[in-house]
């Protein structure tokens, strides 16, 4: 280290070969570095672990290219009409809306109880634990359970989606609540306000845009889930048509059409949600 340098100063760290170190080697850098290294190793390992049976790259890649071309350049409707398509898309959007809105309402109350700054530690901890487990169960299992036990239909799809949706939002909301400036809560409490006053006039107004953003994000996710789950739960929707078109008819053109429909809806929803957010709840108004 102090490799016989005359002008060496105690505050300079050197590497073994006598060069000056400029990295601090602190815990954060170390954790970041090792996380990246481990992820890379796991990724490389993954490719040895995969099962490649039945995979023919030479066939699959040109075929995918061809299929994508057919799908996106020659979309067509063969098994149902435009009207039907609209209706089915409507169902899927509807499932997404229901799961999101109901989930958000339930999540709002649970999140108030789960936020550490608004609740008692044991309530907050237990809600968090339950929510973490619910989130870990794949949505598809919830949907299948409800489809089996409650019968095919939108109830099964929505309830199945609701579990994950709610749990996800509870986590997001409670984190947003916890970020509310402690000073605001303190100031309101200092005026003699009670818990409900603080929540309705301090916490909710401060976090409304976050809550809304999360709800819209979750809606996007739920729309995607509804495509899959509508079909599985027998609630129908564009996902059923997609499943039939790709799994049953093997009709790429129709798959293409449906994909476009989903894509357009997703983009439109995104635009609408951004507009709504900007219009009704701007982060800051300039007037």
């Amino acid at each position, binding site marked *: 280290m102090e490799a016989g340098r005359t002008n060496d100063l105690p505050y300079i760290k050197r590497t073994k070969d006598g060069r000056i170190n400029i990295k601090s080697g602190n815990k954060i850098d170390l954790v970041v570095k090792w996380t990246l290294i481990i992820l890379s190793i796991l990724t490389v390992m993954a490719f040895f672990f995969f099962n490649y049976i039945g995979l023919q790259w030479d066939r699959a890649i040109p075929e995918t290219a061809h299929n994508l071309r057919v799908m996106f350049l020659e979309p067509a409707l063969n098994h149902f009409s435009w009207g039907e398509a609209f209706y089915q898309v409507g169902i899927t959007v509807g499932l997404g809306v229901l799961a999101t809105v109901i989930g958000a309402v339930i999540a709002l109350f649970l999140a108030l109880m789960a936020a550490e700054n608004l609740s008692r530690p044991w309530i907050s901890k237990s809600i968090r634990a339950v929510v973490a487990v619910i989130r870990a169960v794949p949505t598809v299992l919830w949907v299948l359970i409800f489809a089996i036990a409650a019968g095919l239909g939108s109830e099964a799809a929505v309830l199945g989606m609701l579990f994950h949706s709610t749990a996800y939002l509870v986590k997001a909301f409670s984190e947003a609540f916890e970020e509310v400036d402690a000073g605001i809560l303190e100031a309101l409490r200092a005026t*003699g306000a009670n818990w409900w006053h603080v929540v309705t006039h301090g916490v909710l107004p401060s976090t409304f845009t976050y809550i809304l953003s999360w709800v819209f994000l979750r809606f996007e996710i739920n729309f995607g889930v509804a495509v899959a789950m509508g079909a599985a739960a027998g609630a129908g929707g564009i996902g059923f048509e997609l499943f039939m078109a790709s799994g049953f008819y093997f009709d790429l053109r129709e798959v293409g059409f449906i994909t476009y429909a989903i894509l357009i809806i997703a983009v439109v929803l995104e635009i609408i949600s951004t507009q709504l957010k900007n219009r009704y709840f701007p982060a800051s108004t300039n007037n």
Partner: protein
Amino acid sequence: MTLLQVKGLGKSYNSETQVLKNVDFEVNAGEFVSIIGPSGAGKSTLLRCINRMVEINEGKVIFDNADVGSLKKKELRKLRTNIGMVFQHYNLVPRLTVIENVLHGRFGYKTTMQGIMGRFTEEEKEHAFMLLKKLGIEDHAYKRCDQLSGGQQQRVGICRALIQEPKLVLCDEPIASLDPNSSKVIMDHLKSITTDMGITCLVNLHQVEVAQDYSDRIIGLRKGEIVFDGPSKLLHEDQINHIYGTELRELITV
């Protein structure tokens, strides 16, 4: 008339360090008292003990003949309505309008339901406007608070404290985040609260000279103990040095 009595107050957040030790003082109605002391001396903690935003460990705080430490939840709310509080960072709800923030000061007088619905009487609203006008920010009443400058926000904070119709106003470094001009405006307003409205003011300050200019009496706190308590004019160089340790302050001490 003694409004506030602090007797042998002791406070520690954890077992290791005693933040306040045996603090004793009295404040008469209508006084303007400044508390000065270095960072970490316990100034904020002292103020928070007075309206029990933090629990009191030892000793007693008696406000308006009530023993603050022993109050039940309901009574505590009642007590807090009688004590306004003004913060360094204003602590307004940024997304709400000025007038809404001011009216928050009335929550202590409301039932849960009234509060949730945001029901305020016309008198309360008029009172709020009156206060805004008094502090010269009535023009901004319908602006969102995050659009105001720091000085304006602090005036909203003062309005919120005043609409509580308090007997005492606690101010925790009300001008530490403000520029010189705004600081003057705020200090002038606080002073006039005592002189015009007769409300007692207890103000934490970092700026010794400001404290000397404005207050009737200064309490010097150091490491949780009162090391000076007396009229402003008796605070001299050596006392200041004692309060702040031996460091000499250089450049811009104001």
